[in-house]
């Protein structure tokens, strides 16, 4: 599903975000990428989302080569994944349902199903009562759930969530973590980045990948999948 060999990422200003990263994520896997702020975990996720290209090394996501000049692959990948962005990236002035539907409109899905799948996704994340609420009128946690609903409604092969616990308190953060983990199944892998390592003490499923200074320091495969 994801295969990365000797990946490096250097930003335009010379910042070395990732160095010689080797990573493999398989189908249906649940993985947590942890590390302090600035360690490179968001950069790694950006590579998986097709927002950045590796400066060196080779990366394939869902069988698509991620490389500069492969824009068609990037566009295709972005339609296959379910991203949950750190800053949510919901469209202001639109309802929760409209936001979720927007992520499906350009996919190969009949119009009737778009609304149905969007509603189902919002119900799954516990927002059945907020379907027609404009996103600015939702709480932080609810907004986050809309972003998750938008990602899962697409029935993606890969859900990528960047710091989904953000500024949430422990209980809400754990709820969001377990909500995201619940979408993992035999066809859907879930990758979550977080700097809140203390939350992982309460989580008994998934692999933990630790990133420090742009290098993968430790891969814990001991956790139950």
């Amino acid at each position, binding site marked *: 599903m994801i295969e990365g060999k000797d990946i490096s990422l250097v930003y335009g200003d010379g910042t070395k975000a990732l160095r010689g990263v080797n990573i493999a994520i398989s189908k249906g896997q649940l993985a947590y990428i942890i590390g302090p702020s600035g360690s490179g975990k968001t950069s790694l996720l950006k590579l998986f989302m097709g927002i950045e290209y590796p400066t060196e090394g080779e990366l394939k996501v869902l069988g698509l080569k991620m490389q500069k000049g492969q824009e068609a692959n990037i566009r295709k990948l*972005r*339609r*296959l994944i379910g*991203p949950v962005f750190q800053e949510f*990236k919901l469209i202001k*002035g639109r309802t929760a349902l409209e936001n979720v539907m927007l992520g499906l409109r*350009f996919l190969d899905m009949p119009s009737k199903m778009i609304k149905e799948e969007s509603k189902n996704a919002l119900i799954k994340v516990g927002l059945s009562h907020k379907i027609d609420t404009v996103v600015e009128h939702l709480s932080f946690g609810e907004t986050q759930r809309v972003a998750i609903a938008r990602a899962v409604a697409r029935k993606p092969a890969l859900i990528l969530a960047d710091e989904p616990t953000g500024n949430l308190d422990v209980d809400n953060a754990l709820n969001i973590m377990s909500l995201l983990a619940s979408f993992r199944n035999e066809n859907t892998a879930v990758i979550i980045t977080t700097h809140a390592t203390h939350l992982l003490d309460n989580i008994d499923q998934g692999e933990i990948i630790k990133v420090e200074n742009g290098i993968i320091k430790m891969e814990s495969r001991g956790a139950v999948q």
Partner: protein
Amino acid sequence: MKNIGYFFKEARTIFQVDRLSNILSIFSIGLIFLILSTITTAWWVSHQLVNMLRDEAEINVFFQEDMEDVNINSLMESIGIIGDVKEVKLVDKEESHQRMVEILGKEAKVLELFDSNPFQAFIEVKINVEKLDTILERLESIEAIDYIRDNKDVIDKLQNLISLLTIVGVLVITATGISTLVVISHIIRQGIYNNREQINTLRLLGAPESFIGFPFVLEGLFLTVAGGLLAFGLVYLGVKTAYGQIGSNIFIPLPHMEDLLKSMGVFILFASGVLGIGGSIFGLKSAKVN
């Protein structure tokens, strides 16, 4: 097509984000199209008029007043055999007077001041205007003819006027076309800037550029068509007023008002549609969203 409702809704939202600016743009575009329509109308009317005059081209041949009927008939026969002469008709003194009464309308009272009919009989010769010079040469060689009145000067002047209007028209069309494209592309770029976050999100979700851009094309189309309709409304009022004011007071026949308005309506809508789509695409292509 499944997203057509969404596209229209998005276009409306984009319009409302910068409503005042967009409304003012409709007025600007309307005025640009009004200039375009005015020049086009003038060109079209004069072109129609010249064509009409060409079809109706005639020469009036005057002869000595005391000429006997036999000689007049003989003169008409001589004229009739000249090549490119379509029709020869005698207009006697009474008909000549009657025609002037019709032309002058209310002003015909002035003719009552004359003790007797001041008009002369003449021969009306319908011709192929392209052969005017050859026909004139032949007529001048006939001794019985006293004087020839042709409309060559009028037709030539109209032809020159049309040439001038065509040049001015091309320049105006080019200028208004470029202005509209610039105005529309600027509005679209502004719309893209106002919606840059949404556009970036859509790109991150993998939306094709056509999906992202279509609402902007619709907005551009709406602005120009609205501007075009505004211009047409003003042209409609202008033409109706002009026909009402001058239609019955000039000697030359104008094209049918309905035909003129229909042609102008189709032209303005077509031009506004093409310029709206063109300007929007230009705006989309030239906008860079990071």
